[in-house]
């Protein structure tokens, strides 16, 4: 068990975006988190990564309480994440995006950095080679020297994943990785995610596109900020409540 969310609640001025959420994530699994628009999936991510503070409840990562820590602290502990919208540094090249995402392992202190000591140079060389590897992994190697903002949507999303991998996460939160992609982009992405999880990274996916289910070991369905059901993709597909929850809601991207 790598992540344990218990009783997590977030109220935005009265109405509860997330209420009494209990989820446990096991080591090395791929957990799907699905639900219609406004179900509170992204809010949940922001709560886990400390972008917003929960009203109550706790988030425990590897037996360590990380509730309400600052985002960069949580990142240092090894939780990487991607963003739905503009997930990158638009004015850096693709490679620079990944390089500048290497902040934690290795990290050179200010002294080394300023005086360009061997330590710093060693680290940067290592980082460069690592970055190129990651770009190979997510299949962005060929566009590595182009400005990130000029890349197609799918590439930008993949770059988001690459950046998240750069912090060597043990837990990776992917926020709608395939939203707005065309079919073969989707296939590439799913391939990349599979490869990533084979590296032993635990993954939580937020998606309200059912297609993603096929790579999940376990799926949690939430609606109105609450967990409806939980189970294997197969069970979920048959579950009447899920069908019901999905009937009303369109498939366009969340807010």
């Amino acid at each position, binding site marked *: 068990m790598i992540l344990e969310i218990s009783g997590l609640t977030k109220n935005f001025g009265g109405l509860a975006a997330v209420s009494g959420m209990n989820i446990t994530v096991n080591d090395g699994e791929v957990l799907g988190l699905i639900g219609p628009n406004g179900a509170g999936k992204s809010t949940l991510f922001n709560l886990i990564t400390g972008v917003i503070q929960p009203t109550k409840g706790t988030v425990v990562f590897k037996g360590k309480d990380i509730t309400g820590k600052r985002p960069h602290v949580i990142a240092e502990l090894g939780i990487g994440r991607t963003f739905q919208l503009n997930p990158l540094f638009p004015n850096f*090249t693709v*490679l*620079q995006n990944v390089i500048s995402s290497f902040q934690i392992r290795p990290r050179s202190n200010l002294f080394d950095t300023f005086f360009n000591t061997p330590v710093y140079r060693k680290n940067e060389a290592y980082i460069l080679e690592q970055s190129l590897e990651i770009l190979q992994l997510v299949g962005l190697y060929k566009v590595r*020297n182009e400005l990130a903002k000029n890349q197609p949507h799918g590439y930008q999303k993949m770059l988001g994943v690459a950046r998240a991998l750069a912090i060597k996460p043990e837990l990776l939160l992917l926020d709608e990785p395939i939203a707005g992609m065309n079919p073969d982009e989707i296939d590439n992405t799913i391939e990349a995610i599979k490869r990533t999880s084979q590296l032993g990274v635990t993954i939580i996916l937020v998606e309200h596109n059912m297609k993603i289910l096929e790579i999940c070991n376990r799926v949690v369905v939430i609606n109105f900020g609450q967990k409806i059901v939980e189970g294997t993709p197969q069970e979920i597909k048959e579950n009447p409540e899920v069908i019901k929850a999905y009937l009303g809601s369109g498939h366009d991207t969340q807010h």
Partner: protein
Amino acid sequence: MKKISYPLVLTSILLASFLVFMSLAGCTKTATTTAATTTTTTTTTVQPIKTYTVGLLAELTGFLGSYNTATVNEAQIAVDMVNENGGVIVGGQNYNLKLVVEDGQSTLDGTTAAANKLIFNDNVKIIIGPDAYFNSAVSGLCEQNKILHIAGYCTMQPGEMDATTTYTFLGQAASINYFTGALAYLKANYPNVKTVALAMPDDGSIPYFGAAVQKMVQAAGYTVAGSIIGYNNSAVDFSPYAAKIIATGADAVICCSGIALPNGSILKDVRDAGSNMLFVICNSTIPTDNIKVAGTTESTNVVDCSAAYIGCPNPSAILTEMIQRYQLLVGNSNAPLVTLEYANPIWELGHVLNQANSFDPAVLKNTFSNMTSIQTLYGPGTISGLKTFGINQAVSYQLPITTITNGVPTFQTWEPALVP
């Protein structure tokens, strides 16, 4: 990955430095031409008249801009008048004075730069001006480089004029002159005034000028109500200060130095707040301006010691001519003079040069400080200031005292506003 396009940036750096090079080459050229040289001109006199360049330091831009543009015009008129009376005679040779004007941008460092330009670029040996406290930027420099410096005004702040600035003279009535004039008149004509409030701009002069004023007021037998009220020159509304003045419960308030805007506004606000206390304004701005700001109904029961203005009997024929020429220049038949703050020093300079019969600043300063009486645009003036400045180098002359009732200024008398 591409390195920053530094060759390109460098080309532009070189480009910029080339531009700079050109521009400054231009500067040097002008320098060589405007340096105190001998360009011969033919006039009525027998021998050819040479020209001698005098530096004028004015704040042509910034918040003093429009004001100093006017005073520089006066200065030019004064120069013309000196030249038309045969210029100055040094070593039997007639010289016409020629002004080279530099802009101090109404900032202290701008003034320093301008002074540097006058001294090192225009190579002048005599500097007139600048205005107000900006002298502090010039006096030290002139002392260092042995340049004769005749200030156009003085707010008595450190560095402007003291025992160490032996080359600096005060050629024009300053805040201290106007104050002494007003105080003397007040003492003589308003026996029932016992307590006075003091108001002045809080431009840093309070610890110096303010302290001196307070001493003089007490020496004259008045009690100062409360502490000195320092107002912010750039306040939007002066009524808080007015309220503060009224709250002191003094018989009279003396507004020392400052310009028409704050003084007039305070007068207006004091009256609007329902107080009719005696209001004494002592600064160079003329009564009519103060009335303009304060409004006719509000400006009453006011004593004003100011520069000469339209309506006061002219002390000297020169001043009459000055006024006529100025009105001709601005094309307004009843335009008032501003303050002559540069014209007066120039007029005096002509006098001093003739006396000293030399252009050497060292000689000039000795002659100047040893003159018993000097010819100013306001008539004969005296040289004093040992008690106030530590050096005997401040010119003082008679100033007009005016009373204002219901917006009508009435000239009272000429006060010999001596600097102690």
